[in-house]
């Protein structure tokens, strides 16, 4: 069967279908349900990859749901950026798949719904539809956040739910404002009306409300207080997926909003401000943390702040830098959380842990060097692109952001090297050594290998990303592909 543009709905429809049926399968056998869920996740990754050539030929695959062309119906818009994140999500969910555990089928079901929601989030080209998929993703993560079945897990998840629901209400209010002003929800249609109807205080308010809403999942200041709580209390594989992939999906939505709807300098300035505060506050809090989970949670806030800063720079240079930071963080942070899973508790208690498991410690050093931005690792190129874009764009705000990021990098280096020093210290006698089994470490090692592969092939990767970013930053191309009779 050959794939057509209409098959872009499969990354959403397929996991939904299987998720609906999974409780029945789970009654027969938990193992069968697990297998089915994992095969579905794999199938979504394969479908997204198969759609890739067509998407890169035509710029994007567009499918109007129900055959009702935009702006009347809902469209799915699959460009390379969206497909890349679908693949990343599916691979991430597969890599950190739930093991045999209590209530395995329910966790698997939520895993599939996370896949469906996340895919829809990046593929959809309709404002309200994005909101619906955002909510599917959000509700699935509330459940997964509590799946450790501890009091702290329930508490963290409840406080996360309340904050996120508050944000969602804001986002919905923003969407309602957009609809009241423009009378349409299609992003392409809105991009053509934006200059006329979404300007001034109205447009800015709508943007701020939506950023505060979608920013909850994108870990943006000030709606990120749930991050350290949930990332500490949730099972590590949930944390790895949330920090690694799901946060970026929300960032992609914010990017689409910026590119298509709000090219207003005030809106860009607002995002720049949130991003810069996120970078500074995140790294400072990470520096003060006393356990690895919290350190990485705060560092994740800072990295998402970097993305926000990058996306707030107009033009495709900023988009490119943001995507590069996102991809780098996507690989590095889940691997960090794999290490944090074994190295729990006070960092000070890890003295000498690196000597007993040299492979893990080596991985930690590699990841640290990359996230700090030591050449030739990919993290360096990502930060370099960000600095270049910001300095080229100029302006006091951008230059201040660069200064903040440089200072934050120093702090980042300080706390990561402090951990490295502790890992290679001399362990006090009489303490049982912490060892990783190979199975535990495998996802981290795989991600480390990806990082090294990216280091080697940085030139072709850069070219590919540049083309992707240029296309994603082109609002006119988006509109002409979605709207009939455009062009």
């Amino acid at each position, binding site marked *: 069967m050959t794939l057509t543009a209409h098959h872009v709905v499969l990354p959403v429809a397929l996991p939904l279908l299987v998720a609906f049926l999974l409780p029945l399968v789970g009654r027969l056998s938990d193992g069968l349900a697990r297998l089915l869920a994992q095969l579905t996740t794999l199938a979504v990754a394969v479908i997204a990859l198969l759609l890739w050539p067509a998407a890169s030929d035509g710029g994007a695959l567009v499918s109007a749901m129900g055959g009702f062309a935009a702006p*009347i*119906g809902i469209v799915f818009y699959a460009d390379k950026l969206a497909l890349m994140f679908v693949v990343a999500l599916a691979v991430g969910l597969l890599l950190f798949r739930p093991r045999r555990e209590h209530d395995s089928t329910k966790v698997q079901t939520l895993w599939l719904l996370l896949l469906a929601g996340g895919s829809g989030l990046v593929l959809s080209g309709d404002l309200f539809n994005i909101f619906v998929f955002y909510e599917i993703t959000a509700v699935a993560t509330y459940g997964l956040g509590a799946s450790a079945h501890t009091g702290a897990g329930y508490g963290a998840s409840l406080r996360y739910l309340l904050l996120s629901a508050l944000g969602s209400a804001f986002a919905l209010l923003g969407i309602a404002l957009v609809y009241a002003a423009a009378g349409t929800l299609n992003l392409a249609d809105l991009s053509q009306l934006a200059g006329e109807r979404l300007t001034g205080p109205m447009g800015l308010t709508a943007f701020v409300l939506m950023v505060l809403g979608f920013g909850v999942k994108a870990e943006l200041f000030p709606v990120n207080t749930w991050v350290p709580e949930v990332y500490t209390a949730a099972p590590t594989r949930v944390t790895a997926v949330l920090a690694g992939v799901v946060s970026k999906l929300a960032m992609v939505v914010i990017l689409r909003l910026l590119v298509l709807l709000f090219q207003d300098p005030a809106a860009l300035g607002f995002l720049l401000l949130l991003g810069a505060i996120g970078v500074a506050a995140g790294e400072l809090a990470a520096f003060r943390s006393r356990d690895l989970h919290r350190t990485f949670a705060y560092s994740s806030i800072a990295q998402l702040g970097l993305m926000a800063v990058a996306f707030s720079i107009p033009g495709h240079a900023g988009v490119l830098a943001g995507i590069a930071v996102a991809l780098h963080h996507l690989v590095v942070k889940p691997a960090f959380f794999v290490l944090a899973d074994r190295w729990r508790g006070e960092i000070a208690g890890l003295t000498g842990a690196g000597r007993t498991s040299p492979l893990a410690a080596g991985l930690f050093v590699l990841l640290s060097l990359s996230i700090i931005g030591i050449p030739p690792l990919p993290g360096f190129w990502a930060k370099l692109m960000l600095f270049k874009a910001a300095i080229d764009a100029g302006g006091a705000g951008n230059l201040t952001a660069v200064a903040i990021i440089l200072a934050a990098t120093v702090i980042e280096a300080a706390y990561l090297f402090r951990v490295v020093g502790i890992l290679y210290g001399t362990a006090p006698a009489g303490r049982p050594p912490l060892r990783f089994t190979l199975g535990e470490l495998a996802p981290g090692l795989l991600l480390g290998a990806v990082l090294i592969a990216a280091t080697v092939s940085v030139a072709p990767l850069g070219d590919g990303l540049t083309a992707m970013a240029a296309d994603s930053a082109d609002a006119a191309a988006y509109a002409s592909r979605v709207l009939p009779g455009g062009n």
Partner: protein
Amino acid sequence: MKGNARAFASALFLIGLGLMLVTLFEALPFGGAPMQVGQAIAGRALEDTGATNIVSAVLLAYRGLDTLGEVAILFVAATAAGLVLGGAGRAEAQGTPAGFILRAAAALLFPFLLVLGAYIVIHGHLTPGGGFQGGAILAAAFFVPLLAHPASPVNHGVATVVEAFAGAVFVVIGLAGLVGGGAFLVPLLGAGTPGDLFSAGSLPLLYLAIGLKVGSELAGLMARIAAAGDPARQGGKA
């Protein structure tokens, strides 16, 4: 003291926000909605779908994917709540039985709620109502007896089966469009005669699936929360 300062700051913030919202809303054209899309839909919905309830046409045809997402959200919430509440298949509720009035009325109400719910579900494409509204009434039909007899065991088995198949039917109807070479959720089976019970193609089928799924999900959710909140089980995990 600290609490007072916080309440004061919050009140100031809220007043500011209120003023901002009022100013923004003032600028909106109330009563003259732009209807960029709505106008077109109102004009062509009957022709496109055969549904006389245009809201249903929007819900199931033009924005059918939203509705699938909506069904999915209820499903996610039910699954997550089941996970959180331990997902016991059979709650050992031991609440005291309700009074005579509720017990008698529950038995009386059950068939009427069932019929009313079913009516609202299957007429959703013609008159106000539809799968969600009817589904909520169906859920109530099963929940009222539970209120009357809290000690009766809840069997989630049938609900699970209904829920799973109803959800799958929605997606399969959507995927049928893909098999025909069209888009997801293309309306099937022709529009029919407007106003007839059997019209509007696949829309009533979708509503039936939604009604069954929403009904079984809501009933299951309420039963789970009721069982978890039962005093007899309180503190069991503390």
